[in-house]
């Protein structure tokens, strides 16, 4: 074996030695690297995407429609304090104040995939916070009532009459809100009721007597 060939063989072998060493170092690095603790729930990227999306909001009209139709998949959660909840809330709602979100007894209501949970507070604020916490823990089917109870009052309990120049759609929405308000126990204002009764009075029908013409005896013929 020539000297040249021998030296070449050693170089090749050394290349393989270096490659083998790199593999061992990399594999050993995996063992020695400090272990990461992975946070539970959704990834931050997904969380931010969902947080900026408006898909979580449900309008007061949609909610009223579902309550009136007695949607069995609906679960209303009042996120305000106990006093406020006792004072006024929506029918069949349960009270989970923000500070009691992590209580074991309420976990079953929030962490499930059977009901559509609609969260609400006076505004969006507390409901949004509960939604954020729930979403971070990857709870499913959480929604927020857009505008909260204030919006509920302005649209369902005391809706504003549309202007005469508004579209037909606005009037239909108004009459839906009026009807929904009545469902939730809000009476029709007296003045309007009177006007309605007045409008219902119909003028007496005029009787027109029609004299029947006597049949003529046919004259002539063939």
């Amino acid at each position, binding site marked *: 074996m020539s000297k040249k060939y021998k030296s070449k063989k050693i170089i090749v072998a050394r290349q393989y030695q270096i490659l083998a060493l790199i593999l061992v170092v990399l*594999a050993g690095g995996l063992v020695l690297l400090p272990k990461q603790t992975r946070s539970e729930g959704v990834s931050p990227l997904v969380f931010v995407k969902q947080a900026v999306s408006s898909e979580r909001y449900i309008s007061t009209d949609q909610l009223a429609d579902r309550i009136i139709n007695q949607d069995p998949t609906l679960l209303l959660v009042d996120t305000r304090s106990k006093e406020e909840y006792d004072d006024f809330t929506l029918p069949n709602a349960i009270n989970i104040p923000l500070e009691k979100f992590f209580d074991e007894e309420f976990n079953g209501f929030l962490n499930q995939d059977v009901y559509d949970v609609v969260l609400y507070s006076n505004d969006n604020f507390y409901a949004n916070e509960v939604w954020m916490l729930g979403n971070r823990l990857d709870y499913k089917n959480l929604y927020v009532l857009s505008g909260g109870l204030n919006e509920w009052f302005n649209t369902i309990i005391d809706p504003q009459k549309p202007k005469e120049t508004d579209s037909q759609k606005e009037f239909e929405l108004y009459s839906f809100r009026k009807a929904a308000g009545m469902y939730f126990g809000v009476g029709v204002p007296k003045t309007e009721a009177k006007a309605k009764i007045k409008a219902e009075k119909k003028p007496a029908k005029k009787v027109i007597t029609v004299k029947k013409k006597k049949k003529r005896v046919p004259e002539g013929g063939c």
Partner: protein
Amino acid sequence: MGPLIPNGLIPLEWNYVIAILIGMAFGYILEASGFSSSRKLAGVFYGYDFVVLKVFFTSAVVAVIGIFYMDYLNLVDITQLYVHPTYLWAAIIGGMVMGVGFLAGGFCPGTSLCAVAIGKIDGIVFTIGLMIGIFVFAELFDVLEPLFVGSNLGNITLVDSLGISPYWIIFIFTIIALVSFVISDIIRKKVKKVFY
């Protein structure tokens, strides 16, 4: 971030296009590395050529180290990767049949197609035999089905069955690979050289 397709970074429709491109690149590299030669492939059984062992073992080690580093750096979520289910006895018996076929024919299914692509007659004969084998297996499937679907251990890995940290398994696997390369080199030097 990754895997790219399940996380929507690449549309699902590109799945097959990318698979075809990777397949073509894989076929090209197999052929360019001489894997379309049945003598080279069978050499691993006779001890005169261990390229097959070295290539496949190296690729496995590089891939597993790479994937775990990407997982560590949050570039790939390893829990989202597909783990093929383990059918224990089907894999053992199937592996033995495959080994006998590999030794007798000088190809594995992928490399036989490489050989067909460059017009090798032994590759064409092997592929015809492969098709006959598939046909016979399909016809006998009712008989073989209990073996085929039985002993399903689920989507398990060594981490689940041994209960050791995956990083230690990778390290040990790397050492085994390197030791096997050294041993195969020693064997190759002792075996009479075959020129092909």
